[in-house]
């Protein structure tokens, strides 16, 4: 808050405070919805076959592992959506990073040894993932291309490059350390969950506690006001899309570690899940609102539904319907809440 310029009117300060309170409620709403879902599955399990859903550590861990990839994409997407944009290229940037990680690790393992090859390969993959992010940022910030179109173009470019690098197929990785990163655990907690948790905490700090995060909300709420307040919007957007590219890059590296394979289409089915997670988490697609904590709840909601429906043995076609209905209900609740609290028009 110290970064707020002095010439912001006091009324705006009140509005700001009111908004953060609303925001808190919105976060809580996603978590409440998650609790409600888990309760539903718990009751169903007990009634229908006398089992437990929540008190089975195996279920919790399976759901957490399932949520890793969509959550990493959704974390980057949260920043972009708050700024009023969207990044449609993340799915294939993830695939590109997975393929690059696989190739680089295979190439580096004989020379560097198992461990260093993994670190090197992961770094290269995340840096390569930053390149399409940088191009996205330049298109959106400097060439005024609407984010939807610019990142859709990059979706195609990243997809093509990823498939070219992969030779149109999946690239197997031969490195035991990398496979252990993807599948082993420490004190019962899988490494990929630890990596994701640390990353998400850092991203939460970045969004909620830093000037970068404050500027992000300001730009999404009202870009003109943000410009008049002296925020360098172009520079901000450039860094923003690089950040989302790197989130997708990390997701790609962890995917390649888990499946010991770099697949160009790894992230393709996850993109829409990631957008849904952000929206369920309480962000507005019009920009200006949303939190990382909300997005975590959103990603868990999707993971819990999809896992839970298998667990309670719902027939496959009903699973499609249930997932769709739950997403719609979740967003409807959000809309109703916004209307009651009159939050929208004040932005």
């Amino acid at each position, binding site marked *: 808050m110290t970064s707020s310029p002095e010439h912001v009117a006091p009324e705006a300060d009140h509005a700001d405070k009111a908004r953060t309170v609303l925001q808190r409620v919105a976060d809580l709403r996603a978590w409440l919805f998650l609790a409600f879902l888990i309760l539903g599955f718990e009751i169903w399990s007990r009634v229908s076959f006398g089992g437990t859903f929540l008190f089975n550590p195996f279920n919790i861990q399976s759901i957490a592992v399932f949520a890793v990839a969509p959550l990493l994409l959704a974390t980057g997407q949260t920043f972009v959506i708050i700024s009023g944009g969207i990044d449609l290229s993340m799915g294939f940037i993830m695939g590109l990073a997975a393929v690059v990680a696989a190739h680089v690790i295979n190439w580096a393992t004989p020379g560097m040894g198992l461990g260093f090859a993994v670190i090197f390969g992961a770094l290269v993959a995340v840096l390569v993932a930053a390149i399409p992010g940088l191009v996205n940022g330049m298109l959106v910030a400097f060439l005024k291309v609407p984010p939807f179109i610019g990142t859709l173009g990059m979706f195609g470019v990243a997809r093509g490059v990823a498939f070219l690098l992969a030779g*149109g197929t*999946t690239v197997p990785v031969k490195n035991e350390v990398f496979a252990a990163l993807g599948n082993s655990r420490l004190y019962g907690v899988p490494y990929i969950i630890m990596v994701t948790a640390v990353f998400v905490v850092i991203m939460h700090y970045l969004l909620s506690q830093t000037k970068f995060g404050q500027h992000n909300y300001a730009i999404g709420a009202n870009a003109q006001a943000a410009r008049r307040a002296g925020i360098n919007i172009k520079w901000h957007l450039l860094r923003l899309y690089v950040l989302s590219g790197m989130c997708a890059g990390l997701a790609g590296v962890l995917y390649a570690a888990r499946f010991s394979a770099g697949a160009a289409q790894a992230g393709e089915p996850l993109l829409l899940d990631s957008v849904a997670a952000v929206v369920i988490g309480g962000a507005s697609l019009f920009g200006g609102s949303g939190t990382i904590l909300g997005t975590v709840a959103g990603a868990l909601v999707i993971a819990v539904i999809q896992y839970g429906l298998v667990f309670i043995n719902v027939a496959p076609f009903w699973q499609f319907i249930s997932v769709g209905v739950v997403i719609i209900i979740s967003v409807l609740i959000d809309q109703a809440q916004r209307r009651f609290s009159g939050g929208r028009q004040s932005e």
Partner: protein
Amino acid sequence: MDRRKFLGAASAVPLTAAMATMAKAQDKKFTIALVPGLTTDAFYITMNKGAQAAADALGVELVFQGAPDFNPVTQVPVLDAVIARAPSAILIAPTDTTQLIEPLRKAHDAGIPVITVDTFIGTGVYQTGAGDADFPLAYIASDNILGGKMAARALAAAIGGAGKVYVSNVKPGISTTDQREAGFKTAMAEEFPDVVVLETQFNDNDANKAASQLQGVFARDADLKGVFGANLFSALGAGNGVQQAGQTGTIKVVAFDAPGSIVDNIKTGLVDVAIAQHPAEIGYFGLVSAFAHLTGNSIPVSIGTGFTIMDASNIDNPDVAKYIYSE
């Protein structure tokens, strides 16, 4: 009627001139187009290599053009562009049994012979005069129902002929993966009465989802014995789910198709058995059939290619390893 007569007459010309055509085959270069179900899949890339080998041997120019995903909406424009270039013949893996009939009829009406590979239109039974999809000259593919049955037998053998299993599949509506699932269930029902086949789980080609589904099924049915992954990502995901659940070796995984990553998983024990198709064979015989037709020879209306069963015991044998899909 007029048009059909005209076409009949037109096709009679090359037949009567067959000898001349064959003589001229050396100097007149045929161009044959191969339109795969999708371009980004080791199966079709390997098929293209088989077709290319035949094309090189016969002095034919091979054009490989397709869409990046398995979808009629994206395949049809590619097909239209291919037809516009008027190739000598088209080999195609149609992405839908009904939606591709009219687009392919355009090629047929333009006098371009059509042969379907891997997947089919209509019923897959051609040149019978029945139905509106009997115009392709031949269907060349592995018998996916048989492949599914082989997967069932391999899985039943691995689990000792009794226990709970399920099919991890992509999504409903794809002729080949639907047939694999049907064949699997038929063989289990007829030959292995002690095997219980649970609900099929669809993963939208997402390995992450396939892994989670395996964990969900296992969490409910702790006595799960095996899973059949009907395509690459279904098997890759199911194998990872078994690993995440700490059940490697206890829950058996049978995979369909044999790209490099599945073969690696056989070596590390994550996948127990892979049913490999012979895509190079499909491509080779597809091209040879088209060439034979173009040079005035008759061709069989259907060619079935085989399967190879891969497991840890034979994967290093060169006679088996040659069926690993090329990268």
